[in-house]
């Protein structure tokens, strides 16, 4: 079963950490990525996302696209990155994510990725 791990942080959260905390976080992150890539459970590289203010939001209504900058909203928590896991169960996926240093400083949400197939009933 595949899961996406969504990392949520407050704006400027990383910058707010002390240098020692940042160093610890980076080296823990390396260990984390290596361990679960080698176990065959972490798929690909994952993505760190730029600040939401650098993005665009698109809505097409009645065939007309409306594009806005941002969002700039003062969101307490914003999506800062994501990666994909392939784990035996949500319990195992949770156990893996517990080791993510981002979970220690901020929050990581684990959600199952839906399968297109399924069992008939």
């Amino acid at each position, binding site marked *: 079963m595949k899961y996406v791990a969504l990392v949520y942080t407050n704006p400027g959260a990383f910058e707010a950490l002390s240098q020692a905390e940042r160093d610890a976080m980076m080296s823990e992150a390396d260990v984390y990525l290596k361990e679960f890539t080698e176990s*065959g*459970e972490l*798929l690909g590289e994952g993505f760190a996302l730029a600040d939401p203010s650098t993005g665009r939001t698109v809505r097409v209504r009645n065939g007309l696209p409306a594009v806005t900058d941002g969002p700039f909203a003062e969101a307490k928590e914003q999506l800062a990155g994501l990666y994909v896991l392939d784990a035996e169960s949500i319990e195992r996926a949770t156990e893996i994510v517990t080791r993510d240093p981002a979970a220690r400083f901020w929050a990581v949400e684990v959600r*199952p990725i*839906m399968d*297109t*197939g*399924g069992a*008939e*009933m």
Partner: protein
Amino acid sequence: MVEDLLRQFAPQVLGSLVRRYGHFDLAEDAVQEALLAAALQWPEQGIPENPRGWLITVAVRRLTDELRSDEARRRREERAAAELPREHVETPPDPEQVPAGEDDTLTLFFLCAHPALSPASQLALTLRAVGGLATAEIARAFLVPDATIAQRISRAKQQIKASHIPFTLPAESERAERLTVVLHVLYLIFNEGYTASSGPDLQRGELTSEAIRLAREVRRLLPDDGEVAGLLALMLLTDARRAARTRADGSLVPLAEQDRERWNGSYIEEGVALVTDALARSPLGPYQLQAAIAAVHDEAAQAADTDWPQILVLYELLERISPNPMVTLNHAVAVAMVKGPQAGLELLGPLDDDRRLAEHHRLDAVRAHLLEMAGDRAAARSSYRRAARRTTSLAERRYLEARANRLTSDAR
């Protein structure tokens, strides 16, 4: 054609190499290279007279090259470190002398499904070492990056090496338990493919044919084992319905509404014969019982002809020899079909407290069906909705939402 031939030889060639030279990890790479070389050369130059011998010769050459360079590297390091006297490199025996006819495929099945390996590694290694599939093919089937499958395989090989797992059949005393794992690996490969629907999932669907091919192979090697026959029968009797189980748009068709004309008659015939024979002469086992249940469904010309009392008896047996909440769930459906929905719903009650199932969409889905049968439309609708929220399958969610909506619009 060439590909089928290669995949059939793959485990035999690997078995020969490992038996002679050990080094399962390197031998497996060497066989993959030999398979690749053959896939490139044979279609152009024709299939050699002794294809198995050709593959063994090429694989042995790759393996000995690899071992020599390993040895050379080690000697360089050793000399540099301690000026130790050199050891003699043993020259491998002439591959031409490898006797034909010996077959270590069964040993390989056991090795790839060794309990020391994680289930994901067992699946990947079985498909590569026994099935002869390339890493990229396995990755496409499981919809993961190639590097992930490569990691799972190399990790499995490291574990085999580190745990000094011997290349022999398991001792008689643990044979049955170890066979259970081998069969479970094949069952998981089958299911991975079976739940795939149309479109981008098609490659995953090929896993069912591969699982069936491998199950046939185990049956060839263990013709008297009732559970091996039972698993093969279960796969055939399930896969027989494949063409009828989804519509062109990928949506699911429940068993009762499937166009039975589209079921695969020869698979049904073969599966029924297999399970009938196994039940008559082997100790009862869970795969045989599940196959027998599938056979009763498949033998009904119309859904209304289904012999539910017989299915109920089979589920009672299954619940006795292999109890688990999924069996209870299906048992409840059979009870409802024979004794009425209320009796089925009563069986579901205790499952709410079962942690393995309480949050599972199948419990809500079955409850919804039984409530609908009982005529409690409002409760059925909310159970369908709960199930739809809980499933992680898009096709199932669409199906469950549709059932819920149908009850809403009919209610007016």
